[in-house]
């Protein structure tokens, strides 16, 4: 049974695929239970309105309708969990599943109906009569902070949610003395995450025992269980939450949603299974959005471009309510406004702002794409100012290579890094010299289609996270460790049970690779279970690129505990001391007598029968481990983008994209490449196409997939990838995490390329996203014409 093949480091095809390519994967909406009822939520059509009365009587009289309730009909045990109060004086409005007095965004739930079919529920929801008194809405953050603005939460008398600051070094002195100051303003537009699977929920009550099972399209069954207990008073011990196959999340399913609490509460009240699946248009209003910042970024530098200080002032849109980690999302990027560069002083001020818009929370990268946008675009502005090439300005400001944890000016203790190495490799892959020659030729000939080259030499922090740090200085209410259990069955087959909750990343395969290597068994003998709170150990689920970086070390630790116990049993059976055994690839061998050996599967059988165990050894071969990292992990890399910009129409085409990343030790190159490419393309979409637009009344104008521009295959380029490995010092596997690097890195690379293409025309700035309209306007502005 033992094998000498190593799985870690090779592109093992995914264990997940067999059911997913055949249509046998089970997502929440694929399930039905006898007696099941459908829920529909009545949502405010206004961005801001007083709810004067709700009349459900007409709905209740409709055929097939079982129940209908307004917000005031519920008495919750507590509000929906908001886990990250970033400052002690944060304005934190309790958020309940349905609004009672006031609807604060278009889509805010005000009533709920339950019926025998989805059609009947939807028909009935439309018959609920809500008497609204429309109020002026505020959607723009600067307008929301101005005197006399409509107030989203009246009790605070302001739309300011919090102000969070961090300073290192003498910022005022550095900025007063520096000969060069670059000051830029960027708007990081709002995005709709758009996991292709809409959210879905199914709750089944057990009316005899008071137990409930909830299937939900969620990234966080464990966190959700505790949050549901807090909201409904149903104890965690009577609540089972299952995330079956989940069709992507990107942060949008890292949430505790009103509909989850409503479905659970209604199943308790009615004693019937309750189902809810959002329509995509409904999801555009009801599923949280991402990004949405206004940034003022300043660099203080010497005349040659050496950076001395970083100063950022950021407004971050919270939307109408604070969702689970909304206030902390900008904080995740707050240490990265210096990127991978050195300096003497650093200051950041984050201001959270309430507006009459769908709540904003984590979206792939969460805070770090915003920070990377600011520093990577500002350093290009500095390069233009001091007349340096974007490569040269980066090289002269990089932190020098290091293999032991090193302090950054932003306040991070970074695990390891070699920033010039990824840049060198990316330049080679992109054939930079040739690109510049081509650019010169087009500039010389006055080509309508100009070529631009953009860089993003990003640094990020992920692998959420060290519990003591995130609960200490960062004020996060939760922890960041991860758990794993490994059970060896009598015949030698292995089950790995993780507290992480993968939803497309391929972690099932990655965890199996690690366990198979540690235990020396074929990967087909390893099954990975997850996503069911009754099956998996308590854990912290999957987000923030933590699956590989925090989940994998827990799997390896549990496996090593199994091996340690197996060693005791093997020594006993072979009648030697433990020290006389060598262990390799699942096989314990007596030193000097290689034919005397026991394999892990053999020991698993012995441990099961327990006929002949050492006195101090308990039966069974099953071990659990909890891994709480001592630090975050810090992937980085160099991305180079070449674009063609049509100077007459403003159309942008990405013609070359190179991504060289250091994500530490690579478990599975194919999975890593998949994460990088998918993330980069999502970031290209952010740079060029996607924007959630509200009108001044709080109506979401980009309200579904037909008017929000998600690119399809013809719009996006092929991505060339490369890697450089400096093992992380945070975990002994050396893993850094890869889920978010692409969306963090790519938007500024694309935008810098667009500005570079147009710089001969005098363009120095471009609005995000760089749609043909925004590019055309930038060209007009530069020419001195009215945009």
């Amino acid at each position, binding site marked *: 049974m033992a094998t000498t093949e190593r799985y870690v480091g090779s592109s093992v*095809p*995914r264990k997940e*695929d*067999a059911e997913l*390519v055949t*249509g046998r994967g089970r*997502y929440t*909406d694929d399930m039905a239970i006898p007696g099941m009822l459908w829920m529909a939520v009545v949502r405010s*059509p206004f961005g801001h309105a007083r709810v004067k009365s709700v009349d459900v009587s*007409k709905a209740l009289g409709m*055929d*097939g309708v079982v129940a209908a309730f307004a917000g005031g009909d519920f008495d919750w045990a507590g509000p929906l969990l908001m886990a990250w109060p970033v400052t002690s004086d944060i304005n934190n409005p309790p958020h309940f599943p349905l609004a009672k007095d006031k609807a604060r965004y278009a*889509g805010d739930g005000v009533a709920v109906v339950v019926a025998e*079919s*989805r*059609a*009947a529920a*939807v028909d009935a929801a*439309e018959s*609920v*009569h*809500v*008497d609204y008194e*429309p109020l002026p809405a505020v959607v723009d953050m600067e307008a929301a902070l101005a005197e006399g603005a409509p107030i989203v939460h009246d009790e605070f008398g302001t739309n300011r949610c919090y102000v969070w600051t961090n300073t290192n070094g003498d910022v005022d002195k550095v900025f007063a003395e520096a000969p060069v100051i670059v000051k830029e303003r960027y708007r990081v537009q709002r995005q709709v995450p*758009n*996991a*292709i*699977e809409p959210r879905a929920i199914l709750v089944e009550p057990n009316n005899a025992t008071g137990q409930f099972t909830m299937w939900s399209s969620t990234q966080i069954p464990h966190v959700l269980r505790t949050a549901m207990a807090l909201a409904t008073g149903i104890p965690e011990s009577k609540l089972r939450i299952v995330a079956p*196959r989940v*069709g*992507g999340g990107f942060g949008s399913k890292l949430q505790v949603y009103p509909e989850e609490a409503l479905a659970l509460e209604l199943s308790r009240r009615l004693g019937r299974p309750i189902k809810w*699946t959002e*329509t*995509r*248009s*409904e999801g555009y209003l009801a599923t949280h959005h991402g990004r949405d910042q206004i940034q003022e970024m300043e660099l203080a530098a010497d005349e040659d471009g050496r950076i001395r200080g970083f100063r950022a002032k950021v407004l971050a849109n919270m939307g109408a309510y604070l969702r689970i980690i909304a206030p902390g999302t900008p904080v995740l990027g707050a240490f990265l406004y210096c990127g991978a560069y050195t300096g003497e002083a650093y200051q950041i001020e984050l201001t959270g702002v309430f507006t009459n818009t769908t709540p904003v929370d984590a979206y792939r990268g969460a805070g770090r794409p915003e920070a990377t946008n600011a520093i990577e675009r500002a350093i290009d502005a500095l390069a233009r100012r001091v007349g340096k090439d974007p490569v040269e300005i980066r090289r002269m400001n990089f932190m020098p290579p290091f293999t032991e944890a090193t302090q950054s000016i932003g306040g991070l203790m970074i695990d390891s890094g070699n920033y010039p190495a990824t840049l060198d490799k990316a330049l080679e892959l992109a054939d930079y010299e040739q690109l510049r020659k081509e650019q010169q030729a087009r500039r010389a000939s006055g080509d309508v289609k100009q070529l631009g080259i953009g860089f993003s030499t990003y640094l990020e922090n992920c692998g959420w996270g060290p519990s003591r740090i995130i609960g200490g200085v960062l004020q996060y209410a939760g922890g960041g460790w991860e758990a794993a259990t490994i059970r060896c069955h009598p015949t030698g087959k292995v089950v790995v049970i993780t507290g992480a909750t993968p939803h*497309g990343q*391929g972690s099932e395969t990655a965890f199996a690779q690690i366990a198979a290597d540690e235990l020396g068994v074929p990967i087909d003998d390893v099954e990975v279970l997850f996503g069911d709170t009754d099956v998996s150990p308590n854990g912290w689920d999957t987000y923030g690129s933590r699956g590989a970086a925090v989940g994998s070390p827990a799997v390896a630790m549990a496996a090593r505990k199994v091996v340690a116990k197996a060693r005791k049993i093997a020594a006993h059976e072979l009648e030697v001391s433990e020290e006389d055994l060598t262990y390799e690839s699942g096989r314990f061998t007596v030193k000097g007598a290689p034919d005397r050996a026991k394999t892990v599967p053999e020991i698993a059988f012995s441990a099961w029968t327990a006929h002949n165990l050492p006195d101090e050894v308990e039966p069974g071969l099953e071990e659990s481990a909890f891994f709480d990292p001592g630090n975050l992990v810090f992937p980085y890399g160099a991305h180079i983008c070449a674009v063609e910009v049509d100077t007459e129409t403003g159309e942008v085409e990405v013609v070359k994209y190179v991504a060289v990343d250091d994500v530490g030790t690579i478990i599975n190159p194919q*999975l890593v*490449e*998949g994460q990088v*490419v*998918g*993330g980069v*393309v*999502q970031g290209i979409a952010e740079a060029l196409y996607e924007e959630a637009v509200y009108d*001044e*009344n709080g*109506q979401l*104008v980009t309200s579904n*997939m*037909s008017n929000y521009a*998600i690119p*399809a*295959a*013809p719009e*996006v380029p*092929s*991505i060339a990838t490369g890697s450089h490995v400096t093992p992380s010092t945070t975990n002994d596997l050396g893993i850094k995490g890869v889920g978010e690097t*692409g969306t963090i890195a790519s938007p500024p690379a694309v935008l810098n390329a667009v500005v570079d293409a147009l710089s001969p025309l005098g363009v120095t700035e471009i609005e995000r996203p760089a749609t043909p309209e925004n590019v055309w306007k930038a060209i007009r502005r530069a020419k001195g014409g009215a945009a």
Partner: protein
Amino acid sequence: MTALTGRTITRAWPRPRADFPVCTASDYTPALQTFRPQKGGPTLKRIEVTVNGVRREAEVEPRQLLVYFLRETLGLTGTNVGCDTTSCGACTVLLDGESVKSCNLLAVQADGREITTIEAMATDGQLHPIQQAFHENHGLQCGYCTPGMIMAAASFLEENPSPTEEEVRMALEGNLCRCTGYQNIVKSILAASQQMSGAKA
């Protein structure tokens, strides 16, 4: 929304005051899903369709979309629903051998016709070459768009057995994926085309 659901949503909310600007773009206009005969509801219509080689008869509401007929009446949940605007293509199936978005057809429009879904692509325990290629080339992550992608590819490779990368990308313009950046989907379909034309030769 009217065009999609075949029905005008009658709104019970009070209209906003005349002096209050109105935008209806994002008003809550849910698509209709999941039908169950209601008293006084529309007359049911009997249809006969051949699904994955099996003749099926059923009584359906005239307003029921084909995708819900497949998922909820026949229990073929491999075909997914990702939007309500015919944008994402997760619901792509073959109708008389050609790919269609099954959210954009009524079940009654399939009467007398032949439908193939993802469940019928693997035969005798063997993956279809397109399925195999998606597996080998990491052409999927969360898997939600995958059945639609595979069905779209199956129809396309019938028309064009030896496509270029550009042609594959163009053929997929009606199918959205949020995970892969399309690169490995395109690679998978090109690999499948070689495998399939090799097998025929």
